[in-house]
């Protein structure tokens, strides 16, 4: 359901018209539009926003760890429409047990490295990603450094 506060935003309304069930929430805070999307729907919503709404660029994909809350992770997408000079943030909540979400690499190729980075540093799996392996840390690294339960300092014993 689209929150009433977002009814004056064209992008939010278009997503609702495309698939009303996909929206789980959202807000417009400090002039920035955030739409929360149900995780299984992320691929189709991104495809719609790119090909129908002109969001040609995916600025970045990242995640936020809300440990110990559940669902633990938020996967955050920043989209940019050069044509309309407009930005939107999409957010999906993903559970902490075996976190996984569909990859959007088939929509934007730039998602490739960003998703690899999120996989590497947060341990979130991206389904149907063409090359899901670590990008920053060594291949044999254990753990995912940007998780909140991963220590900042200390040595391995």
């Amino acid at each position: 359901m689209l929150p009433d506060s977002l009814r004056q935003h064209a992008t939010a309304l278009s997503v609702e018209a495309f698939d009303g069930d996909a929206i789980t929430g959202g807000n417009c805070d400090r002039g920035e539009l955030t739409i929360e999307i149900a995780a299984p729907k992320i691929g189709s919503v991104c495809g719609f926003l790119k090909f129908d709404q002109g969001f040609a660029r995916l600025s970045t994909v990242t995640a936020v760890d809300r440990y110990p809350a559940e669902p633990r992770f938020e996967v955050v997408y920043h989209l940019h429409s050069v044509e309309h000079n407009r930005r939107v943030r999409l957010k999906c909540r993903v559970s902490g047990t075996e976190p996984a979400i569909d990859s959007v690499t088939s929509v934007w190729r730039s998602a490739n490295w960003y998703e690899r980075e999120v996989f590497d540093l947060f341990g979130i799996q991206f389904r149907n990603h063409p090359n899901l392996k670590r990008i920053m840390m060594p291949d044999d690294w254990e753990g995912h450094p940007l998780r909140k339960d991963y220590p900042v300092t200390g040595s391995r014993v």
Partner: protein
Amino acid sequence: MGDQPNPQQTVAVAEEEKPRTGSRRMVLNMGPQHPSTHGVLRLVLELDGEIIVKCEPELGYLHTGIEKEFEVKNYQQAVTLTDRVDYLAPLSNNLGYCLAVEKLLGLEIPPKAQWMRVMLTELTRLNSHLVWLGTHALDIGAMTVFLYCFREREDILRIFEMFSGQRMMTSYFRIGGLALDPPRGWHERVKKFIDTFPSRVDEYENLLTSNRIWMGRTQGVGRISLEDMLDLGVTGPMLRAAGLKIDARKDEPYSSYEKFDFEVPVRTENDVFARYLVRLEEMRQSAKIVRQAMDGMPEGPWKADDQHVVLPDREKMKTQMEALIYHFKIVTEGFRVPAGEVYQVIESPRGELGFYAVSDGTAHPFRVHMRTPSFGNLQATSVMVEGTLIADVIAAIGSMDFVLGDTDR
């Protein structure tokens, strides 16, 4: 130069001949220690003769966990981390981060600090472009330009040193304004530099623009379509050299950029040479902005009027109990930032630099993600160089102007 080989065709021919000749391919590691990768980047190149069939960039050698480090610093301390991301444009990073946190705080920055920020960020752009031009030309074989560029860069670094005490890791922008009062005599110093600088750009142009070797090495090299670039996350001068007029300073103005008069240079050739021309013109435009900021510098305070965030003046601390208490609180605990999240974009010398900052209402950032331009640009390497000659790789990746610290964070 000349006809670009068609990658699909090359691959098809190699596959066809495989049963007869065996694999003709050779795998070559360029880097991680290669003089022209400017940092530690490794390109795994699969070659068929001199033609690149496949290119896979390997990164992460300079990963230092800066995003993790943000979470244990307080907001003001974290400014120093941003210097170390893109070490050729420290003040651009400072600005992006400060603007993001100021947006979270809803803090109004006085005009003098904004103008000063614009002036110094544009000097940073000059600094970064000078290093790019010098090293890029050096890679392609023009030694002289490098020496000239570093002569001018030295002047800029001295100006930074005058302002902040540091040549490179300046941390001069702070949340709420500047770190220090601008030093006495800064105006003359900047004026002296900016009066001569445009003639120096002409000097570089004399050495390169109609130089036959330079043209031969750069024209028609490193082509990649605009659609590919947008899809692969490329930003900045690369897009502008492909005919797309995109610049966050114009499209999403920050720090009073809308009050400055400058042009966004655009070319349509979309090759290494066009990127070179775009960046040279950007230097001229930046010099113009520096001059406007310098001449029109407003009077007034250089830090915001918010006692919860900005440290009080020394004088007040000696006479007012309240100022002393705020000073103690800010230094020991930092300041609390209202919960929320922002994505602040600025135009760094390399393209779109975005800071995604999430606050949970405490004095430490809950999460800071940097959308760095080098990371986005580097992702296009494979598409750009596959099917071209190995000799053109150096020119092509040089024209992307990435910094590995910026890529790996």
